[in-house]
């Protein structure tokens, strides 16, 4: 059960971070001069999604 829960959390986070990455790439292609801002915001958003995934993984460990 732990493995399934952690796996589901990772699928969700993976999709989310993938979408952020693809949109950031599009944004950089459209406006290469804003690459610095886009990159740091991309990392920030990815970190926030990762946070949700981490909570899910932690809960998967606690709720055995």
């Amino acid at each position, binding site marked *: 059960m732990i493995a399934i829960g952690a796996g589901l959390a990772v699928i969700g986070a993976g999709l989310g971070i993938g979408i952020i990455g693809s949109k950031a790439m599009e944004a950089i292609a459209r406006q290469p001069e804003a690459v610095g801002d886009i990159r740091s915001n991309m*990392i920030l958003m990815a970190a926030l999604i990762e946070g949700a995934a981490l909570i899910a993984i932690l809960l998967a460990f606690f709720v055995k």
Partner: protein
Amino acid sequence: MRKILISFLSVFCFAFLATAQNDHSGHDHSAHDHSSHAEGAHGDDAHGDGHSSHDHTNECGYTHQDVFEPGAVAFHHISDQNVYSIGPINIPLPCIMYVPGEGFDFFSSGNFKADAHGNGFYAYDRWVIYEGSVRRIMDESFPMGKVEIGDVASGHMYNLFSKTKEVDGKDKTTVYLCHNGDAIPCDSKSYADGGFLGGGMSSYYDFSITKNVFTMLLMFILLAWLFIAMARKYANNIGKAPSGAQNLMETMFVFIQDEVAKPFLGNKWEKYTPFLMALFFFILALNLFGQVPFFGGSNVTGNLSFTVVIAVIAFFVVTFSGNKHYWEHILWMPGLPAWVKVIITPVEIMGMFIKPLTLTLRLFGNITAGHMVIVIFVGLIFIFGQNGMNPAAGYGTIIASTVLTMFMMAIELLVAFLQAFVFTILTASYIGAAVEEHHHAEEH
């Protein structure tokens, strides 16, 4: 290209040496046996004829089996220890133990004469060292002072062993010392995590200068020296171009100042920049130092206690710098209907605590996962080589393992910088949200 080749060869040589050592001793990395399932799972195939010389039964009837368990080995290598080992050399560290009712006990972990796995050949004042951490002998009649418990002459230590038993539906691992035919239970140190990672509260507390504490002090001195030297250089070289290490430090310093502090903190950036710099450089230094192979292998940022403490510091900074608007938005969000406010307030209060929790887990998870993957890639050698019983396959796997390990270490180098940056930028954004001046008129 030449540099890549040289680094490849050096990693290859290290792996080769490690494997050769393993063949020689035949007992590396296998001290984690759980006798309860060792017979069932590995007894028949791996330990057939001709291999019985690898097993060793001690006076208490415990059989030391030569089984390689990658998971246990990985956990052993990322854990905090009471000895600092550089290659085969063990540097003793001061141990400070507190036993409620008996007071403090100070001694050096050099008294135990620990081997490469952190198993001591001697007991000292009813303390023993097993798997690198000091444990207390739970027998009042055990003699004080230095007592030989292992076979010093042969260099093998089988008298300390662990057994896993199921108690109330949970697996409980107890360490035993076999002395004169008696299996004496040994208590492990108290963990304040309620038994999630450790064993919960026990009969003593460990306040020692462990490997992680030592590394933190070392990095503190290094960073203090580096930054004081930089500050002197700036004071002396006014108007001149930066030179030497100044170039490196200035790049990172200005990056954090311009990309993190200024955009997130607005006009209050000067007040919080020292805190953000301290976070970034301390985490970065510890991340990078933890990457250095064979030099202690300190895993400080991958230790939950460390990440909890820095996240709690960040939480206090955010909470105490929160202005009126911040608390208003948490406790009674303006511009919403009353029934929505009732739902929003508990969520916002939970969010206050979830933020430091995710900071803790993100750093811990990323660093720990990276270190474990490296250990397991190296462990592939011993899995395929069947822990010294099939040396040809082991030597063959070195090539694949070297490539994989180098690839993983390159990723880890990126992660070391990224996680230090992410921790800093998130802390900056939380502080920024707490100190921001809101303009309600047009928004609501």
